């Protein structure tokens, strides 16, 4: 048990000249989401979800009438002024940042010498909170087609993630099987709902992902703690963007602990997990506390045969953005050492969000002794040959 330490895949030497792998980039829809996804849905689903062409029948085409329109779960209460996109990247014609794959390749990949970037379409980050499973299944399926059609075809450096609807594990497995042979799809994206990741509900998804050597990727969606179907945040409701910003990582901290306690990493002894944009400064405390309590409560979870921090070091990965900014640089170095960043940390930019990290600055902040691991090798170990 517990031997599933990911190794860099065969052919890793091909990647030795990589400067960076960005594991968290957000393609943005150029239009309202039902319209953007309409080409990837049946007529029936276009009507049901409310795309413009099908909204009211041909007689109202082109008229901006109200009508049925699903809202995607997001962050309705605690927005940051100015939205979540970089204002400096808006086109003169109003084009949204990150909505044009060729332009994004220039602004992100070319400008910062990033060799591979893993895409997590921002519009569907919260689809796991959607209360209606068949809608979530349809949206994720359409988004995957959109990712392949619009982004993967535009530049060989983009890598997709297979978005699945956690509400319907059976359909999620079908979706994984549909895309698994596409080696440009580098992981399985699960949008977290109320069910914690350690729950047997997810095991069919994990089985399929492990079979195809795809890691599970999660990312906050902004609706944590907001809806009855959201993963709850600690303590209670947030008040402002300021306290909201430190609340949405909480369900993912719990997910780390929950995966370990439920023995998921023993049941699926090759499966790896990436926690993107979930922060990492909290990790040393969680590792130490879990190790400590594991010693005293081992009998209840005898399948947890290694210290929890070992499962984390071997099988879980965290992303750099948003980089913490302690007042003294040596404090960052200390945190990186404590969290075993040489194994657990991967570079990410969060492009094109306003709180994105600059790649060059991130690279400077990472000590030379672990820079290569953080910028390239840990992502290689996680995503395997699909990232090459």
């Amino acid at each position, binding site marked *: 048990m517990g031997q599933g330490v990911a190794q860099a895949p065969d052919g890793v030497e091909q990647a030795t000249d990589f400067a960076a792998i960005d594991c968290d980039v957000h393609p943005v829809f150029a239009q309202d989401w039902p319209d953007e996804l309409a080409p990837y849905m049946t007529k029936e689903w276009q009507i049901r979800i409310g795309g413009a062409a099908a909204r009211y029948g041909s007689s109202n085409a082109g008229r901006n009438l109200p009508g049925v329109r699903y809202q995607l779960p997001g962050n309705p209460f605690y927005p940051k002024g100015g939205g979540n996109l970089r204002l400096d990247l808006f086109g003169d014609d109003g084009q949204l940042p990150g909505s044009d794959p060729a332009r994004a390749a220039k602004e992100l990949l070319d400008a910062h010498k990033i060799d591979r970037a893993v895409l997590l379409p921002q519009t569907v980050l919260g689809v796991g909170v959607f209360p209606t499973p068949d809608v979530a299944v349809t949206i994720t399926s359409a988004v995957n087609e959109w990712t392949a059609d619009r982004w993967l075809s535009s530049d060989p450096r983009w890598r997709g993630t297979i978005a699945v609807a956690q509400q319907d594990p059976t359909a999620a497995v079908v979706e994984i099987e549909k895309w698994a042979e596409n080696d440009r799809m580098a992981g399985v994206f699960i949008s977290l709902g109320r069910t914690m990741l350690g729950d047997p509900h997810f095991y069919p998804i994990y089985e399929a992902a492990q079979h195809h050597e795809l890691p599970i990727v999660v990312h906050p969606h902004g609706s944590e703690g907001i809806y009855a179907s959201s993963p709850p945040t600690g303590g209670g409701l947030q008040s402002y963007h300021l306290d909201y910003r430190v609340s949405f990582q909480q369900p993912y901290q719990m997910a780390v602990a929950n995966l370990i306690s439920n*023995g*998921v990493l023993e049941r699926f002894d090759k499966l790896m997990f990436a926690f993107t944009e979930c922060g990492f400064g909290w990790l040393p405390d969680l590792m130490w506390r879990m190790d400590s309590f594991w*010693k*005293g409560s081992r*009998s*209840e979870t005898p*399948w947890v*045969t290694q*210290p929890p921090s070992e499962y984390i070091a071997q099988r879980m990965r965290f992303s750099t953005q948003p980089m913490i900014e302690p007042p003294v640089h040596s404090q960052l170095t200390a945190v990186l050492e404590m969290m075993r960043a040489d194994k657990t940390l991967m570079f990410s930019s969060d492009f094109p969000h306003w709180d994105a990290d600059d790649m060059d600055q991130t690279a400077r902040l990472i000590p030379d002794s672990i820079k290569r691991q953080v910028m390239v090798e840990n992502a290689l170990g996680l995503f395997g040959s699909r990232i090459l």
Partner: protein
Amino acid sequence: MAIRAADGVNEGSEAPAFADVGDVEAFPSGTMTIVTAGEHQVGIYNLDGELIAIRNSCPHRGAPVCKGTVTGAMLPSAPGSYRWGMEGTVIRCPWHGWEFDLRSGSTLFGTDRRRLIRYEVAVHDGRVFLQLKRPRESVEA
């Protein structure tokens, strides 16, 4: 083990090498008795006739570990399943729940070098003796 006769105990001005902790009949099978030996309290366990002596101080946080429950343990198992074993040979500390193998003194979780402090036990002429100055090879890591 080699043990000097009881009349050698407490001989001279140096700290005694052995402590006479009582008549062997005072430690019946299936019991734990706390005695004072030298400067420490020691729990004497009789596991089916085998006498085991451990210092009443948990190597983790100093709890009176001998006040903990003697029990078995859940052995490493597949997720969602349980396997019980080591019945009567495990002590669970009353404070943080660390489980120790009474016979080896080691933790069951196995990643900590600290162990229970054990004493060699000898029975001589119906009396139970604890060796207070332990041979070097049994000194804790």
